[in-house]
């Protein structure tokens, strides 16, 4: 066990965990932030996507010991009230079916738009293909990303 000082959603947090613990489980089990989802645990589905210094990152294989001083943003911290343009676009297009994958999709889409405010279809596909949606909401996700980009 070791003490880690983390900055999560702008707030300082301290956890005492095994250094190998992935950020995903630190968030879910130790910090009561369950918005970040477990889907595969092997960086294949994108359900656990967070932002590390503003860049999309899969948290299920990211040991907490590698975070250092980098700031973490989770779905709970993307906005206070769901007002982030990507969240708003998701609501407008009523994207979710079961909803389980959507936190990861939204975090990835938000990072994409930050790096590339006006992505082409091909760029959206390239950036989003690591995020599985078992319910098959892909066409709505694409439309919502375009709405968020336009807005």
């Amino acid at each position, binding site marked *: 066990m070791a003490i880690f000082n983390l900055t999560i959603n702008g707030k300082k947090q301290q956890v005492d965990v095994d250094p190998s*613990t992935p950020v995903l489980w630190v968030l879910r089990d130790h910090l009561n932030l369950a918005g970040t989802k477990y889907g595969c645990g092997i960086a*294949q589905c994108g359900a656990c996507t967070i932002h590390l210094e503003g860049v999309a990152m899969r948290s299920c294989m990211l040991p907490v010991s590698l975070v250092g001083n980098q700031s973490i943003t989770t779905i709970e911290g993307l906005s206070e009230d769901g007002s982030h343009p990507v969240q708003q676009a998701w609501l407008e297009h*009523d994207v979710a079916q079961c909803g389980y994958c*959507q936190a990861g999709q939204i975090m990835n889409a938000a990072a994409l738009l930050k790096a590339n405010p006006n992505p082409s279809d091909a760029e959206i596909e390239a950036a989003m*293909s690591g995020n599985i949606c*078992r319910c098959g909401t892909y066409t709505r996700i694409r439309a919502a990303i375009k709405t968020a980009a336009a807005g």
Partner: protein
Amino acid sequence: MTLIKTTYNRRSFLKTTTLAGGGMMLGFSWLASCNPTPEEVLSMPEEWFEINGFLKIGENGLVTIMSPNPEIGQNVKTSMPMIVAEELDVNWDNVIVEQAPLNTDIFTRQLAGGSQSIRQGWQALRMAGASARRMLMEAAAQAWQVPVGEITTEAGVLHHKNSGKSAGYGEMASAAASIPVPEEVQLKEVRDFKIIGTPRRNVDGLKIVTGQPLFGLDYRREGMLIAMIAHPPAFGLKLKLVDGSAAKAMPGIRDVFTIKTYDEGYEKQWCDTSAFTELAVVVGNTTWEVMNAKKALRLEWEPIPEISEDVTQFGGNKKDIKTPAGLEDSNTHAAKMAEMGAKAAKAVRKDGDPEAAFRNAAKVIERSYSAPFLAHNCMEPMNFFAHVTADKAELVGPVQTPEFMEKSAAARLGLPLEKIDIQMTRQGGGFGRRLYGHFLVEAAVISQKMNAPVKLVYSREDDMTFGAYRPAYHATYRAALDADNRLIAFHVRAGGIPESPLAANRFPAGAVDNYLAEEWSLDSNITVGAFRAPRSNFIAGAEQSFLDEVAEAAGKDPIAFRLELLERARTNPVGENNDYEAARYAGVLELLREKSGWEQPQPGVHRGVAAYFCHNSYVAQVVDIAMENGSPVIRKVHAAVDCGIVVNPLAAANLSEGGIVDGIGHALYSALAFREGAPEQNNFDKYHLIRHNEAPKAIEVHFVKNEIDPTGLGEPLNPPVVGALANALYRATGKRFYEQPFLAGKPVLG
């Protein structure tokens, strides 16, 4: 107005609690999410008045409507309350929706399966709203001393025209709560609907996009422990020995032991399916610690004996289920299926004289189709929370069959049914997997043993390798054409491991003079279960691909060819029990022909068509494929759907799109293969699920407008799209596709 008797489960309309003081939430409120968030509603009422088990009204006019059925992404949590709100005649903006717990006294069929939630809930939901409205009207009539027949309602307000009096529902709610349940109620005419048929967004939308803890896996309780299971690596094996000493010594680990999911001699129900009923269990403080300790378990396995057991089926009949011993293999399966397809099987339906017709045919076409086992792969792996004490079991989580699993849990724990309390969270997908709730019982047994609240969590690997899979299927078709290219005989022989996908009375039965349908099956120890559109998810694609080849051989347009057959079935049907309405079937094909611009081909676009009837709904689809850099790209999918009245067009379109993507994805890419009894795929690096870049670029869904009571929508969209896809691929590549997955071996992109 339609006058109906409120006979449907009258207990639903009785009050479940007596009225108490202000702010009463009846213990349901926190279920809307796993955390109570009443502050999200700006002005909560001081007091709630329960009108019936489905709804309560606050003194300020706010209405809470219970959503009775499990929400697995099919959006019943929005659409079922919409039906109540319609008949209650309230403004949708003033409605709060809450997930109801399992309560068989109030609700009927709290089950997510068979695309039946809306169809079977329709009358009860309408009645719940209509009877509450009537009680409010009677309360107003008494208060104003006027005949109830003169009271009208509009958007949550009661009016009496002659006296000019009016009052909000909230003002009359207290009085209405003590009015006897009416003997009969009036239902609205379809043309008067104001909420049904209008697009309404997901009631949990904001909670989903802000990452609220809605799902079973998100549930937590003070002092809760985490449990994970270890099961044999292959079907056909069972646990022999567990050495948990190393695991138990690891940090954060509380205990390691084995459990039996069901008691010796317990008579299983259909939804108790589980290949591994003896499991090793690791319990600890946190998920990561338990995951690590699991790796330190030393486990030994041994072969299972052949088993034969009576299992109570859905509907109550008992069936003898045989589980053979041995380690099974996909290559052997494929060879056996081909062998079975080549010999006569059990005839289920025969019209005319097919043998003679085939003998006299000008042309005979014969083709075989196959599909592999599939894992459900709900994005949220199986899990359940349990807190079992000496006299009570509290079970919380995602399950599609709470009212069935309640019985399994009661039997296993030795508690009476009323001591089992099941609450449903939002569910990260279902697709049929969560019908089989062994994980609920496992969680309960573990909690009982630990004497503590426990959340059982399956890893993705556990989830994928401990499944109730889509069976492997095979079908052989033969068609006979006469010299004028008319279809004179049709023969299907379909089977699978361990069940046949045959639907003998569906189209083209009834449209062909000489018809033979045969089925076969082979026992297996690989556990299977319902998978979105069971059986149809294979047989539709096979049949619709075959009909495409027959149409081609006959030199006919594939839509015209189907319409010609349907015309025969409509005007002069062959045989009995034809399981479809030919006119509605033809209706979706005609709508699709128009909406997809079928008769105006576009350069570079290769199109395939298919149509199917299942879950009481009719669907026709066209898939458009373009070749880009030598690879097929799905440009667009067009669908025409007749599912009766569409309750929520926005959700209906989304669910339809999902069905299409699901059908295409599995047909193109997915398979669960077995070697020596072990699944070869155990996570998304090896199991190929369709991804963004592989999904159709556009999907357009058109609904037939009619006033028929609503039918299924969660399933009927994915079966036919497999056929439309195969037919489009043929036009794009010149190659027919008979074996799923069509693009086997395409690398997975992680």
